[in-house]
C-alpha cells in the first residue's frame, strides 16, 4: 500500500524520532510512504500570525504539489501541519470563491489546485483506513501498561477537519488497546499543551504544559503517547524544565504512538529511535 507523506519541518529536524518510527513501523504493516517532492513548510502558527493569507497559500502549495504528483491521500503526522493543510483543503473544497482566490495566488507560481487531495492525520489513517484488526494481527509484543493517549488540540479541532469528537476522542485509545495497553481516561486529553508559547511566552507556556501533565499524573498512567511533534516536545523535552521550575516530580515517559506501535510490532528500541526521547531514561527506571 502506497500513500502520500508530508513530513513537515519538525520531523526533518529535532523530532526525527517521529519520522524514523513512523516509517519503520508503517513498513512492518506494509504501508509505503511516498514523500511529496519539494514540499514546503506549512507555516505552523507563526506565518498565519504574520500574514494569514500567505500562510494559507503556503498550505495550498503543498496540496497543489500533491495533486500534481498524483497523490490522492497524504498523511501529515504533525498535528499542526495536519491542521493547516486539512483546513485549507476543506476551505478550498467547500468555498468556490476561496478556491478561486487561492488559485489566483498559486497561479503566480505556476500552480493550481483542483481539490482532489485528501489530507489525513497519521493516527486517523492507521485506525480508520488501515484498520485496527489488521494491526492487532501483527502485534508481537503486547505493551501491557496503563497508557495515557494525549491528543492535543489540532488533530481534533476545529470541527471542520476533525474526524471525531474533540471532547471525547477515541482513535488513539483504540490503537493503544489493540497494542495490548490499557487506555486511561482523563480530562486533559485534548487540553492544549501550550504550543509555541514556550518560545513566545515561556511562563504561560510552561504553566499550560504543567496543567496537562498534572491531569495525566492523577490517572497513574505509566506511559504517555503523543501524535504531534510539538506536543511531544512540550511534554517530553519541557518535562524536565517544569520539574525544575515548579519543583515537582513527574517521571512520565513520553513516546510517539508510532514508537509504541513499532515496539508492539516487534521492532527494536533503536529502530523506533526511542532513545531520542528525553524521558527515555525514565522508562528504564
Amino acid at each position, binding site marked *: 500500500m502506497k500513500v502520500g507523506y508530508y513530513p513537515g519541518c519538525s520531523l526533518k529536524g529535532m523530532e526525527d524520532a517521529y519520522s524514523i518510527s513512523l516509517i519503520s513501523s508503517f513498513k512492518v504493516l506494509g504501508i509505503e510512504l511516498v514523500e511529496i517532492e519539494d514540499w*514546503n513548510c506549512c507555516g505552523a502558527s*507563526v506565518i498565519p500570525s504574520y500574514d494569514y493569507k500567505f500562510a494559507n497559500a503556503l498550505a495550498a502549495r503543498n496540496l497543489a504539489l500533491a495533486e500534481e504528483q498524483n497523490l490522492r491521500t497524504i498523511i501529515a503526522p504533525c498535528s499542526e501541519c495536519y491542521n493547516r493543510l486539512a483546513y485549507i483543503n476543506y476551505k478550498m473544497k467547500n468555498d468556490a470563491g476561496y478556491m478561486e482566490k487561492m488559485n489566483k495566488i498559486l497561479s503566480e507560481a505556476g500552480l493550481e489546485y483542483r481539490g482532489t487531495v485528501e489530507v489525513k492525520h497519521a493516527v486517523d489513517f492507521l485506525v480508520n483506513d488501515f484498520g485496527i484488526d489488521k494491526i492487532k494481527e501483527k502485534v508481537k509484543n503486547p505493551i501491557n501498561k496503563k497508557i495515557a493517549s494525549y491528543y492535543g488540540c489540532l488533530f481534533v479541532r476545529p470541527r471542520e477537519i476533525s474526524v471525531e469528537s474533540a471532547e471525547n476522542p477515541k482513535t488513539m485509545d483504540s490503537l493503544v488497546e489493540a497494542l495490548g495497553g490499557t487506555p486511561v481516561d482523563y480530562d486533559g486529553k485534548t487540553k492544549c499543551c501550550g504550543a509555541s508559547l514556550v518560545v513566545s511566552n515561556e511562563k*504561560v507556556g510552561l504553566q499550560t504544559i504543567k496543567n496537562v501533565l498534572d491531569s495525566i499524573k492523577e490517572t497513574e498512567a505509566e506511559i504517555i503517547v503523543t501524535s504531534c511533534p510539538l506536543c511531544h516536545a512540550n511534554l517530553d523535552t519541557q518535562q524536565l524544565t517544569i520539574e525544575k521550575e515548579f519543583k515537582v516530580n513527574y517521571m512520565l515517559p513520553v513516546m510517539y504512538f508510532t514508537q509504541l506501535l513499532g515496539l508492539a510490532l516487534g521492532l527494536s528500541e533503536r529502530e523506533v529511535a526511542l532513545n531520542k526521547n528525553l524521558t527515555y531514561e525514565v522508562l528504564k527506571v
Partner: protein
Amino acid sequence: MIAEEVSKISGENPFACFQCGDCTGSCPVSFAMDYGPRRMIHLIQLNLEEEVLKANTHWLCASCYNCTYRCPRNISFTRISYALRNISVKRGIYPNKTTKIFYEIFLDHMLKYGRFNEGIFVREFVAKGGKGLKELLRDINLGLKLWKKGKIPKDVDKIDKLDQIKKIYEACVKEEKEDKQ
C-alpha cells in the same frame, strides 16, 4: 474599523457574538490574558482599536481552537487572534522582543529555505538576543542533552523551487496593497 479589518483577514464575523462567555471558560490560557476572548470580541464590536491591540490576549492564544469548537455562534476566536496578530505585526506591534525575533527568523527561513530549520533557528535566536542570560544558562544543560541525543540537526534543509515561495509571497503582498487602495 478594527472589526472590519479582522473580519476581512479571518473571514469571521465578530458581530455575530452574543457574549455568552463559553470561549473564555474554555480557553486554557485565559488565566494569563488581559481580556478573555469574549471581552476581546466585545471590544472589537465596540471598535475600541487601541485597547484591542494593546491587549496580550491574541498573543497568548495558543490556537487550540477550543473556543471555536464550542462557540454557539460558530465564530472562531483563534482565527480572529491570527487576524489581530496580522494587524499588529503590520503596525510593528509585538508583545515582546522574543516574539519579534521568533517571527522574523521564521519568516526569513520561509523565504530563504522554504522550510523551518530548527538547528539554525536556535543559533540565530540566541544570537539575536531571543533569550536572556538567565534562561540561557538554565537551558545550556537542556541544550547539551538534546545535542547528545542527536536532536539538533546540522544540515540545512532547503527546497528546490524557492522562487515559487517568493512569488506566492509577492502575490500576497501585492494583493494586500491593492486592497488598501
